[in-house]
């Protein structure tokens, strides 16, 4: 990838995510030599690994399938991660369920919070612990910046990720580690397949910004960049005004 530093070795958790795939393709085209892919489905991981391997003669790709929400599985998988001494760990998995469905079904709400909130935090925690250098990057969302009626359970799982990353950034301050929070706006991936494509950012452009942001080690990355200003306005709206809006 012209002009962007790519990791020599990287680990991706939730590696079958559309956004993660786009980032990894950029990395491989830029010369990344080693990728380790973690996800819940062996078949899907194999397909993604096959794709990346076909894109370059110079990359070695391995996979590890496990339950991403199980703390014991996370502890077990992290040994392999630290043995690789990666320049970057990207934590990408997440799900977005219908707010209305979750209001009917607390078990689904629980799954929302665990898959998109608790699990990424545990992975980040385990990686920050196990590594002594490099970048741990977690994908949050603009939806974590303020709760709104249309998706606050998804949003609160992302809000949780943000608080945890903030603490980890404080923890690693002054060390050779960086922790990066990536906050995408709505992007065209399988997660948003049912939404109006007109309002979605192109995943390859989002991936490029993510790759650049990770290379710079910026603490909080809004992608596309205009979301930083938009969310600043939304966060600063007085509650009585905000609550009257149909957002």
């Amino acid at each position, binding site marked *: 990838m*012209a002009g962007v530093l790519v990791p020599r070795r990287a680990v991706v958790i939730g590696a079958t995510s559309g956004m993660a795939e786009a980032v990894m393709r950029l990395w491989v085209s830029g010369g990344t030599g080693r990728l380790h892919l973690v996800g819940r489905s062996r078949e*899907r991981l194999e397909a993604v690994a096959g794709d990346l391997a*076909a894109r370059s*003669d110079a990359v070695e790709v391995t996979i590890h399938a496990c339950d991403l929400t199980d703390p014991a599985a996370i502890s077990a998988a992290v040994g392999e991660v630290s043995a690789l001494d990666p320049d970057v760990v990207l934590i990408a998995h997440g799900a977005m369920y219908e707010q209305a469905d979750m209001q009917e079904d607390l078990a689904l709400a629980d799954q929302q919070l665990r898959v998109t909130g608790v699990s990424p935090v545990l992975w980040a925690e385990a990686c920050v612990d196990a590594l002594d250098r490099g970048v741990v990057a977690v994908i949050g969302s603009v939806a974590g910046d303020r709760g709104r009626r249309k998706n606050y359970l998804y949003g609160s799982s992302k809000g949780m990720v943000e608080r945890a990353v903030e603490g980890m950034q404080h923890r690693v301050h002054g060390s050779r580690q960086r922790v990066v929070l990536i906050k995408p706006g709505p992007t065209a991936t*399988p997660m948003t*397949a049912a939404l109006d494509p007109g309002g979605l950012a192109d995943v390859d452009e989002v991936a490029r910004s993510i790759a650049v942001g990770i290379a710079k080690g910026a603490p909080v990355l809004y992608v596309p960049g205009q979301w930083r200003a938009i969310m600043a306005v939304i966060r600063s709206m007085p509650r009585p005004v905000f609550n009257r809006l149909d957002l």
Partner: protein
Amino acid sequence: MTAVTAWGNLAPAEHSIVALRDRDSAPGLVASAERPGLATGLMRSYGDEPLNTGGVAWDMRGLSRLIAFDSETGDLTCEAGVTIADIQRTFAPRGWMMPVTPGTKHVTVGGAIANDVHGKNHHVAGSLGNHVVALTLARTDGTVTTLDGPSDPMFRATVGGMGLTGVILQATIRMHRVAGPWMSAEDVVFGDLDEFFSVSAESRDTYDYSVAWVDITTHGGGRGIFTRGNNAVEQPPAPPPGRVVTMPFTPPLSLVNSLSLRVFNRGYFALKRSLAREALVHYDPFFYPLDGIGRWDRMYGPRGFHQYQCVVPSAGAREPVSEMLKQIRVSGLGSFLGVLKVMGDEPPIGTMSFPREGVTFALDFPERGDATAALFVRLDAIVSEAGGRLYAAKDARMPKEMFEAGYPGLDEFVAYRDPGISSEMSRRLMGE
């Protein structure tokens, strides 16, 4: 239901979109559709071919993974939603390019096979189907079959089969060995159609790629620019081409009126003339000049536009082409683009493939209701008289009789259709 439009932006159509994401789950989703479905790629077909109003659209874009590449044979196996842009970008620096590419890189492999697309090298390479080694097809009865080449009649029906025989899940394409991403190209100015045909004939054996742009707005017409080139042997180290400027929204009115057309055509002519000498060009502007303007389709405004593309047999092709130019001039409906190419003799392997021996002529027209329709009737008469046919990928309106006369493989084809698949175009031209 979600409204989608094809490239011509003629009319939005409501679909229930089912995103296919991976090879394992895709066949089940295809088999479980409750209503007739249709696979859709990047919607670069202009008319009603990629539409299935009120039905299911299987969105193939998520099936975007490469599966295997054999650097000995150049055989690339990939999922059907992989784009030609991705393949060219990934493989050109490694010494391989698509054996055939259309004039935009924003198409999927599945969509390109379903139209058996042709490119600037048709006269040496034939169409894409001539380079497809194998296909995997999922049908709505739940079967998944690997079709190994043109000896299989289902393979021949699927190449150029407009998505109607099943959903292509993956394909193996034999890539073209090149030295790198650069082309050696030149532009030659011609003054009339006779000159076009002689430049074409003289370039045929020495240039692998050729296409001509015809200025259809000036009097005494038929002048134009003939672009020809080869894959360059010497490859310079150089940066990739610049960023795309996108038309962000549909302007309220069509920007293509006769004045802007005249200015565009004259300006383009002057610009191109100044470039008329052999030069190294990156493959991107060489193959995909229009991709540099992003969503240029939106320039035609909310009513949309048509592309009219025909092929007529080369024996006596000068007459019909010249007659079409005349009819367009008389109509005053101007066209942004007039693209002419002499095709090769290699027969297509697809039962319903458009490419054939002859001359192909493609023209864009903004939708202007009755006036446009009346011009098309006159053009149809010329094409039919010459024994030619129209390209389904570009069509939203050809009469059924013209389709039947132009595609003699039709009777054989219908037996291979998937009964659970239907499109706006298939209902218009085949009754179901």
